[in-house]
């Protein structure tokens, strides 16, 4: 009797929710990637999308493919990883970096910056350009990490479609750019490659925010539009990871719709520019 009552309360009613739970449990056990605390609505959309493309009829059938076919798992990995990014995305955010954060960084002899969830690298190069223009690039060590090896490879290559440059140039100007954006890349046919000078102090590394540990002694951690894909408990855990990775007075930069207001770590941070989600670890 007691068991029955417990069951009806604990078990999700929706069989698909059960299937998704089992799929993520299986992926974690088989491949070590942990999606168990991802937002469910988003994950379900990506799974449904994959089922349509690959002609699979149920999530359980998809789970079988994922477990036995590693190449199929890598397709799923791309599906579940969000790679929407652009150079100087939200130009006003980067203007705030220039005006509010750079002057503080200038007081340090050596600077460490971590781009967590860097995707294809557009924000890493945006930040490198600002650092260069502010005379800080040669004394900054930049770590750019992502859990998805294929986007990390793209970030490393730094080759982007020339068709995007018009938008990026506009963003760059709005963000307070002091030079001409075209000085930072070489164009050939329909692609551009970012100049080597920007890459010299960047280390690209495989790092999973969900399963890996701290990156030490950072002066600034940038992680924009990654936390929105996590559930509340995973968000709290990752903000804790950032807190442990920052030096006292270090900056945390999140996406425009992300916040630490309701996080248990909130008390350790103070807002620098609330509107653009720039926080600082309190002294």
């Amino acid at each position, binding site marked *: 009797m007691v068991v029955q009552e417990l069951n009806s309360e604990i078990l*999700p009613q*929706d069989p*698909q*929710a059960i299937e998704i739970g089992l799929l993520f449990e299986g992926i974690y056990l088989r491949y070590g990637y942990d999606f168990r605390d991802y*937002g*469910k*609505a*988003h994950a*379900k*959309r*990506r799974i449904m999308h994959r089922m349509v493309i690959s002609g699979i009829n149920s999530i359980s059938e998809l789970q079988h493919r994922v477990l036995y076919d590693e190449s199929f798992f890598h397709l799923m990995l791309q599906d579940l990883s*969000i790679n*929407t990014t652009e150079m100087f995305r939200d130009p006003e955010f980067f203007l705030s970096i220039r005006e509010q954060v750079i002057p503080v960084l200038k007081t340090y002899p050596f600077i460490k910056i971590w781009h967590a969830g860097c995707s294809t690298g557009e924000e890493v190069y945006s930040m490198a350009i600002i650092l260069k223009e502010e005379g800080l690039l040669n004394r900054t060590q930049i770590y750019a990490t992502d859990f998805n090896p294929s986007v990390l490879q793209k970030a490393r290559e730094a080759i982007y479609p020339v068709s995007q440059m018009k938008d990026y140039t506009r963003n760059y100007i709005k963000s307070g750019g002091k030079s001409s954006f075209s000085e930072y890349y070489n164009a050939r046919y329909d692609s551009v490659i970012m100049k080597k000078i920007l890459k010299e102090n960047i280390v690209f590394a495989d790092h999973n925010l969900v399963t890996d540990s701290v990156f030490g002694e950072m002066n600034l951690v940038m992680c924009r*539009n990654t936390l*929105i*894909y996590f559930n*509340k408990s995973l*968000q709290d855990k990752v903000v804790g990871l950032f807190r442990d990775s920052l030096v006292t007075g270090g900056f945390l930069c999140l*996406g425009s*719709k*992300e*916040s630490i207001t*309701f996080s248990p770590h909130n008390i350790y941070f103070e807002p620098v520019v609330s509107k653009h989600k720039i926080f600082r670890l309190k002294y």
Partner: protein
Amino acid sequence: MLTGANIPYDAIVIGASAGGLDALGVFLPMLEAGLPVPILIVQHISATSDSFIITYFDRMCKLKVKEAEEKEILEPGCVYFAPPDYHLLVEADKSISLSNEEKVNYSRPSIDVLFETASWAYGNRLIGIILTGANWDGAAGCELIKKGGGLIIVQDPKTASISRMPESVIERFKPDYVLPLQEIGPLINKIFNSTPTQ
């Protein structure tokens, strides 16, 4: 006003595109205060828009109007707009998720993304409304809501400033209601029995 177990639906989702702000400006102020369910709206809008429309509608409406925030629990009587450049999703626990994954139907926010996830969360307890617009975003989402047993209301294409979006729903299946804009608000009030008495 209906309460508790007597409420026939638990949420309303609305999609609008070109001409939508004017249409919402007619529709939303008609809704009576105390609506017992939340309303979620995707209005196609430029990625760089400011929050003016929120302030504007909040001032015009009897219901509270706000921009949807990540992880927020949906409250009855509140109108939530998808933020510019983010998809708006509903979780099974009736909280909000935002996402900046790729555009769907050339749109972010996309109506289909909201309607699809809301349908998963609410099943047959959901009302979907499509207003004026120039593309077909929302049509697939409406069909999903309909299949799940929800109610679909479409603005009469003849009265829409751009008829494409309502038409794209009607081409797929027969909506429960096809109504001129002015009649949609009163219908919602009637469904929730919130027509003012005297």
